[in-house]
């Protein structure tokens, strides 16, 4: 907080290149930095998975061409070693969740859109915002570096269960340090978001006039603020176990590779799981709530009618936020923590499904009687609804103690949560990119390429994850290096691995039109006006692209967020800043 001397002077003079693009404090530039970095990590995490899919479809066969590049320590003669498979699995989860989706959904969309939608000139703490991005960046670099150290990256799963993670190779220490950076980044971001939304709403922007996207980000920020610190505590304890040789998570009498461990013992393995899932269940809602926010904006805009039940959405999202802190142990039914505790968490889990169903129902009802425009963002938003529906409903058997026991840790679980985050959240984020691209760049994206991106992606996503339900119901465990080839009960579903893998690789090919579209439209796309979608919310009331300070004059708000097709009005949309004439 030292550059106060420049305050008041820097209004008109040009900021240096470094201050504009690298150590930026403008929320829009930070949002773009987050977005580009997160898209890179999403692609990278996807590549890790594509490597794993080769081993699952063709276990023990050498991977042509690429296999040789990955070094003899990982893939001698192109054949994947089990240790490398474990690294890929752990890092795929970590990268996708903490370095891909959260930074894209919260860091990028939240940073760029929230101040615009509430009519603010910037975030409340621009410099803290910058530190937040760079903490994320450093965390990402630490995680990537861990692939190149002896023993490779973390390999104990994205959950880093102890005692395995306590005795794992150095990559696990890198994982912890990287996580501490990512947690710091999220905390700073969360403080900033909540303060911004409460303090910087423009005149007339009451809480019940906030676009649903802002509500979703608001609740998400609270989850990040309050759920991440216990994981930080857990990470500190695991770091102590690894570096100072304490026994927080190591029980007495542990034998590793035939050798008794020289430890004081007395630790609790379950403690790690409790602390981890205390974060990681709210984290699930961190992954989905911003996506729901994006979907709400796009549905209202493309159905040309108000959402049916804005207040239900708001109360549901608040209720989800609260309940998400008391459902964590439904990930732990198999640990033997006791039936009483299981019963409690089973009840809370059933309760939390109610607001999620309300939200989805409101979205479906909002389609009723609308004059739907099938734009590219709308296609992704429409696909989100059934995909999220499948993901959500298949979660119910996992929330119930008795049905979870046979399904736990099988491919069924993978299919369930990937339906929520892949064709769910990631589709919503694609929708958001297509939707806000004209505002951010001043140019429109190509529709034909959008269709080439959307339809194959939708088909491939289902061909990847639907067969996994079948494998999971057959009892195939999710962490098998050979995809179940050595297990009798898996034999009937092994052929599906080939289908899944090819679908994953084809899915990758059909992301190329998106990447091309993104870059090509940036330079060559047709010019867009300030409000190409004829939308009501405040971000469309700025010049395009929004300048430093966002608005020509900070607008005043007179209406709710989704006043479409008002009876007797000249246009079918009434922007929030349009005065009500009586």
């Amino acid at each position: 907080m030292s550059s106060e001397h420049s305050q008041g002077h820097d209004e008109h003079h040009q900021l240096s290149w470094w201050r504009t693009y690298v150590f930026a404090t403008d929320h829009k530039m930070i949002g773009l930095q987050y977005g580009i970095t997160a898209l890179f990590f999403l692609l990278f995490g996807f590549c890790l998975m594509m490597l794993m899919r080769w081993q699952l479809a063709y276990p023990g066969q050498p991977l042509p061409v690429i296999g040789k590049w990955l070094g003899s320590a990982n893939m001698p003669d192109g054949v994947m070693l089990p240790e490398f498979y474990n690294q890929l699995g752990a890092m795929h989860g970590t990268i996708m969740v903490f370095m891909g989706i959260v930074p894209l959904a919260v860091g990028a969309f939240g940073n760029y859109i929230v101040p615009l939608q509430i009519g603010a000139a910037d975030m409340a703490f621009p410099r803290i915002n910058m530190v937040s991005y760079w903490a994320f960046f450093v965390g990402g670099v630490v995680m990537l570096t861990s692939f190149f150290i002896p023993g490779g990256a973390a390999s104990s799963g994205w959950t880093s269960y102890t005692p395995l993670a306590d005795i794992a190779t150095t990559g696990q220490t890198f994982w912890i340090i990287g996580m501490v950076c990512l947690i710091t980044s999220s905390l700073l971001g969360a403080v900033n978001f909540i303060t911004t939304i409460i303090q910087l709403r423009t005149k007339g922007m009451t809480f019940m006039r906030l676009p649903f996207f802002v509500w979703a980000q608001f609740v998400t920020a609270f989850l990040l603020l309050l759920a991440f610190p216990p994981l930080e505590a857990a990470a500190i304890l695991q770091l102590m176990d690894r570096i100072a040789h304490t026994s927080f998570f190591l029980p007495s009498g542990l034998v590793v590779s035939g050798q008794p461990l020289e430890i004081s013992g007395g630790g609790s393995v379950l403690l790690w799981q409790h602390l981890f899932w205390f974060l990681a269940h709210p984290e699930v809602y961190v992954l989905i709530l911003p996506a729901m926010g994006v979907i709400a904006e796009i549905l209202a805009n493309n159905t040309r009618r108000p959402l049916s039940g804005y207040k239900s959405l708001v109360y549901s999202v608040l209720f989800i936020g609260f309940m998400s802190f008391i459902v964590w142990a439904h990930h732990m039914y198999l640990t033997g923590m006791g039936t009483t505790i299981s019963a409690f968490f089973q009840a809370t889990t059933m309760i939390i499904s109610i607001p999620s169903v309300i939200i989805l129902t409101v979205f479906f009802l909002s389609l009723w009687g609308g004059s739907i425009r099938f734009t590219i963002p709308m296609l992704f938003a429409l696909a989100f609804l059934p995909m999220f529906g499948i993901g959500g409903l298949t979660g119910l058997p996992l929330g119930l103690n008795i049905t979870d026991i046979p399904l736990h840790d099988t491919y069924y679980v993978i299919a369930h949560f990937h339906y929520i985050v892949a064709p769910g959240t990631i589709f919503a984020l694609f929708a958001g990119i297509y939707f806000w691209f004209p505002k951010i760049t001043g140019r429109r994206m190509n529709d034909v390429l959008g269709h080439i991106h959307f339809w194959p992606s939708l088909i491939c996503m289902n061909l990847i994850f639907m067969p996994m339900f079948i494998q999971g119901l057959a009892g195939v465990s999710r962490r098998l290096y050979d995809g179940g080839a050595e297990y009798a009960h898996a034999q009937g579903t092994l052929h599906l691995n080939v289908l899944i893998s090819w679908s994953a690789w084809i899915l990758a090919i059909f992301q190329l039109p998106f990447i091309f579209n993104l870059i090509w439209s940036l330079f060559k796309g047709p010019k867009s006006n300030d409000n190409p979608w004829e939308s009501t919310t405040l971000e469309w009331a700025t010049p395009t692209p929004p300048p430093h300070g966002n608005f020509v004059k900070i607008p005043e708000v007179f209406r709710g967020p989704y006043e479409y097709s008002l009876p007797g009005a000249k246009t079918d949309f009434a922007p929030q800043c349009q005065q009500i004439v009586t």
Partner: protein
Amino acid sequence: MSEFIPYIVEEREETGLYNAKMGIWLFLASEVMLFGGLFSSYVMMRVGALHWPHGSSILNVPLATLNTLVLIVSSVTMVLAWASLRLNDFKKFRLNLGLTILCAFIFLIVKYFEYTAKFHHHLFPKTSTFLAIYFTMTGLHAIHVIGGIIVNAYNFGPGSKMWKTQPHRFINRIEVSGLYWHFVDLVWIFLFPVLYLL
């Protein structure tokens, strides 16, 4: 940048808060969850342990009592520093903030002697679960004390120039760092009985 942002100095009417005050309360809420996670871990470790030593049989209670007093005094001087600024007495502010920083250093020095005495008797974090949680929690707390020293030292030294240019904003800054400092004290008020006395 900051020229666009309202409520840096004055308060927003509906909330009665300026931005930084809201920010620090949120940050402290996350800190409560951080230490809350560790205190919960302490409870779980202790409930699950076959035997758990009485804190006073291993740790030095008189030194910790001294440290408790030192921190309480530092909290008082922190408030006095803020109050002096409100009364427009910059000299008294410097004195009180200086005393706060001094107390923080005394706390760390006492802590250093406590730690080295343990190491001298071959008591390390790996020796027992009790010592593990003792070193982890007091260590994390000490890091927070160091953080407080850095913030206060900045406001004592180069940061205090702001008093000339934006006095109201500087008072806010002292209030915010004061809130943080009280929290650090409060954590110790919980740590002391839990680790040393129970």
